[in-house]
């Protein structure tokens, strides 16, 4: 029998930052150790070696038996992209809340004022949301939003187009118009490591077309954005993500969140979720 929670892949470390001392961390409430052994990285928990792999700059582990391969981000292998290891940020929130906030474009003008949004440009237009059955992922497309500084490489305000993708319960990927390379999408991800149901470590990661901005500036830009979200996330109520409809009033901007919750429920993914309305 498969376990919808334990059989997922989770990020547990950044490959580039894993020192000889290794990393002691937690996954789904259990202690986990990530360490070098004979030149390879292994992940152990409770005396067992977990299935693990290195991809998108991170070490991924599965506490159970992998139900499927790790999701694919084809852009990660596209020549010319800069791959940015942003580093962990610990947040006292449900891992699902962290993903949900990332999917919510309506908060930009209020939380990321003058960077990803600005008043009075608060309108989120009509966009498409679907659960793509063939890949079992949530997708939101044709999301348009006015942004004062959409990326480090953006010189001024532009209308940015976004696509949002949830390929795994604790992973969100966004694709956004790439100012220096029309026709391509910048890829910005949030890989979430659930430590407990109300505590997570978030590993943002990016694959960008930007040949000019120094790497450290790219890291600072993304950390700035994510830290603006952190205090909001820590103060959200209820702490766990309600999977039953009716608790929070949906607006157009929330359509992605509604699809995400429906999809989680369908998959039986309840870690960090609240099932019965409190």
């Amino acid at each position, binding site marked *: 029998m498969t376990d919808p929670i334990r059989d997922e892949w989770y990020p547990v470390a950044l490959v580039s930052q894993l020192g000889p001392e290794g990393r002691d961390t937690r996954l789904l409430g259990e202690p986990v150790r990530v360490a070098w052994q004979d030149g390879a990285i292994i992940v152990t928990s409770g005396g067992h070696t977990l299935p693990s792999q290195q991809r998108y700059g991170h070490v991924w582990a599965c506490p159970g038996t992998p139900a499927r391969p790790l999701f694919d981000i084809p852009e990660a292998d596209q020549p010319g992209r800069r791959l940015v290891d942003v*580093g962990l940020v610990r947040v006292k929130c449900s891992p699902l809340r962290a993903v949900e906030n990332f999917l919510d474009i309506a908060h930009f003008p209020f939380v990321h004022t003058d960077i990803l949004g600005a008043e009075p440009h608060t309108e989120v237009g009509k966009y498409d949301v679907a659960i793509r059955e063939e890949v079992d992922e949530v997708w939101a497309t044709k999301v348009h939003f006015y942004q004062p500084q959409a990326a480090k490489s953006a010189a001024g305000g532009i209308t940015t187009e976004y696509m949002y993708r949830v390929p795994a319960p604790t992973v969100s990927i966004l694709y956004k118009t790439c100012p220096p390379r029309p026709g391509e999408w910048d890829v910005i991800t949030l890989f979430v490591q659930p430590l407990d149901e109300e505590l997570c470590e978030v590993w943002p990661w990016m694959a960008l077309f930007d040949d000019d901005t120094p790497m450290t*500036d790219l*890291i600072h830009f993304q950390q700035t954005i994510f830290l603006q979200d*952190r205090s909001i996330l820590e103060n959200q109520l209820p702490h766990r993500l309600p999977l039953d409809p009716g608790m929070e009033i949906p607006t157009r901007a929330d359509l992605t969140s509604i699809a995400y919750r429906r999809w989680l429920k369908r998959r039986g993914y309840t870690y960090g979720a609240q099932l019965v309305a409190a």
Partner: protein
Amino acid sequence: MILYDYALSPDCYKIRLLAALTGAKLTLRAVDFHPGGEHRSPAFLAINPGGTIPVMQDGTLTLTDSAAILTFVAAKSGPAWLGDDSPEMRARVAQWLAFAQRLSASIGKARTHDMLQKPADIVACRKAGVQCLREIEAALVERHLTGDAFLAGNRPTLADIACFPHSMLAPDGGISVDPYPAIRLWTRSVRALPGFIEMPGIHRLHDLKPEPVGVPE
């Protein structure tokens, strides 16, 4: 003036804030503090053997302490911020600049521990942080009794710039600021200064907008 800077650092932010308030021009050099740990690299240690940020370089001058950097930027671009109205004010500014080191060592460490998983004795840091906030609260209440709204007197000085960021960011390290009404009022006064800039966790004031129409006179 070159500032070795980290976007999330309160001690770097206070330099950026003073520069914004005084119109000083800074050249920012981003340091990969996290996750890269660049401040511990041989190249950085050659500039600042203490391995801390911020660092300022201006010509042959290298400054490795935020109090010294604030003093330098103020002396160059906004001498009023030095707080030279009276011997008492000048001494208070010096005292608060020194006090700010205790904020970095307590609240600052609790914050990087909670957010970025940097090592710290978290219980001791939080305890020391609470003690610092209590001291600021008490000092502000005392100032209010003499009609002053700022730490060193009746106008903002380096004392406020040095102590304001950590006081506002304490919740990031699991330290509540709810018990300190005088601190909250004071941080609003700082955020209301013309030219104020933000950092993550320190938002501009939204509530100074005009009253909505229809409010009875």
